């Protein structure tokens, strides 16, 4: 390779290195602590699934195998992130959409679920688990 070509490649690589470090830095601190979830630092703001990813492992042992369950943030029109996070986090259960008929178990992220047909089973800082009243 010619020297000019090596110089171009080297300069570009160094620019990319600087940009990469900057990009990692701007995603926010803390920089050397083990994160709680896999989305803790994907941006300066809290990721839309962060609370669900903290809550769901806590709820998981309380749910029977094969139970039908849904997960969403009450009052939030965008039910997709928490619902799909639950699909991955609850592999032993059948996670159904909160937009259809509600199942036996409901996981409410952050906000309380006010449906009177359900009672609270467990409460955590990130949300609550509800069960349908028979």
């Amino acid at each position: 390779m010619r020297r000019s070509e090596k110089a171009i490649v080297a300069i570009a690589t160094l620019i990319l290195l600087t940009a990469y470090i900057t990009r990692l830095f701007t995603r926010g601190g803390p920089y050397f602590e083990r994160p709680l979830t896999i989305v803790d630092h994907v941006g300066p703001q809290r990721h839309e699934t962060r609370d669900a990813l903290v809550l769901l492992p806590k709820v998981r042992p309380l749910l029977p195998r094969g139970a039908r369950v849904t997960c969403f943030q009450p009052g939030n029109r965008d039910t997709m992130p928490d619902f799909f996070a639950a699909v991955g986090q609850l592999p032993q259960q059948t996670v159904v959409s909160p937009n259809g008929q509600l199942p036996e178990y409901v996981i409410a992220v952050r906000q309380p679920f006010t449906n009177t047909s359900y009672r609270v089973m467990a409460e955590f800082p990130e949300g609550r688990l509800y069960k349908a009243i028979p």
Partner: protein
Amino acid sequence: MTDFLWIAGILFLIFPGAILWRMPAIGRLDLPARLSIALAGGIAIVTAILYLYNFVHMPWTRFTVGVPLIACVILSRRGGEGSRDQESFASLSMTTMLILIFAALTIYGVATARETCGDLIYFWGPKGQRFHQAGSIDAGFLGFRDYFLMHSDYPPLVPLLYAWASLVAHRFSWWGALFLMPILLLATAFAFRGLARNGWYAALLTAILGYGFAIGMVGGAADPVLLLFEVIALAALTFDFEILAVIALAAVALTKVEGAVFVAMCAFAYLVTVWRRAPSPAAERPRAAAPTLRAILIPLPAAIFLGSWIVFAWRNQLIDSYGLARGSIHLDLFASVVGETLRQASYKIAYVPWLATLVPLALRRNFRRAWLPLIVAAGTLLSALFYYLHAVSPSWWIEASAQRVLLTPLACLVVASAAATE
């Protein structure tokens, strides 16, 4: 412990993949290149096994999957005698260091959860997990009416790879899926360095992909796997490792939807350019078949795998993305689509990745061997625009995916730049 076992399950694939070292041209590459190609080969082998077992209703167990893998390990024992021609790269140590620095940054990025792709949470992870539990490609899960985001007809290589690692570790590892990214970045860099015999462009490729992975947020998604196979396939075609290209192209077709276009572009570019190229000193063997026949044979396994997958998806009513081609094209949005794609193509760094590959090409003007990757770069770029023109809301799609999708033409340009140095 699960995370460690999960990653160990992936790394174990180097051993069966070392069967590729039996090809003399690959056996002569340097050790990092051989290990990287072995990892890619192992991934292709294990996913092919799981894929075929799915159709013959063979259960996925450590025993049933392990036996053919061990057979590959035994068969591979005589291959790989190491690099006989110890070509010294004057800049080897410096370029290796650059590659390792970018790999280290990627490790930091995934370890501190700075590069996680949302798609890992929404569908790549759940698919791998569910396939592992079901012991098959779970069509019922993919087609479940509520799971509209599951991209039911996306090719299955990545979920199958995740299912294999979960089989080893007994459960899916979210962190393991993330840590796969720096491993694949290193494998891509070293495989390319070995095939192209060019340390500087390997360093540039690592820089572009490392930064691209970070800004495009691809941790745990299929893009690092896709780029590993794409780079190997294209470098193998460009530098006359054609059998390796056949395997890598088959894997590309089963990794992502856009892989089909890449395979088609590679076949076309090969057909167009094969007549004017003399074989490189690293050629695997004297070419027996006629160029046209070779251009048909090279993408044939990819076409068979992809065809079987589309038939499977069609029979199980899973067609989603592959049906998009039937949609109408929005030519009225052409200017805005091109404008938005160009904006994303800057990578928020003033187009440095493009300039770093195009300027050396323009200076050198030695296109003989570079035509093939250049044609593929142009084809994949145009196909991305073509896809966006079919989307209902292209702006959202471009913002969500362009920085990832454009890594393919960028990687093609790096291969072209390296080819032009010959």
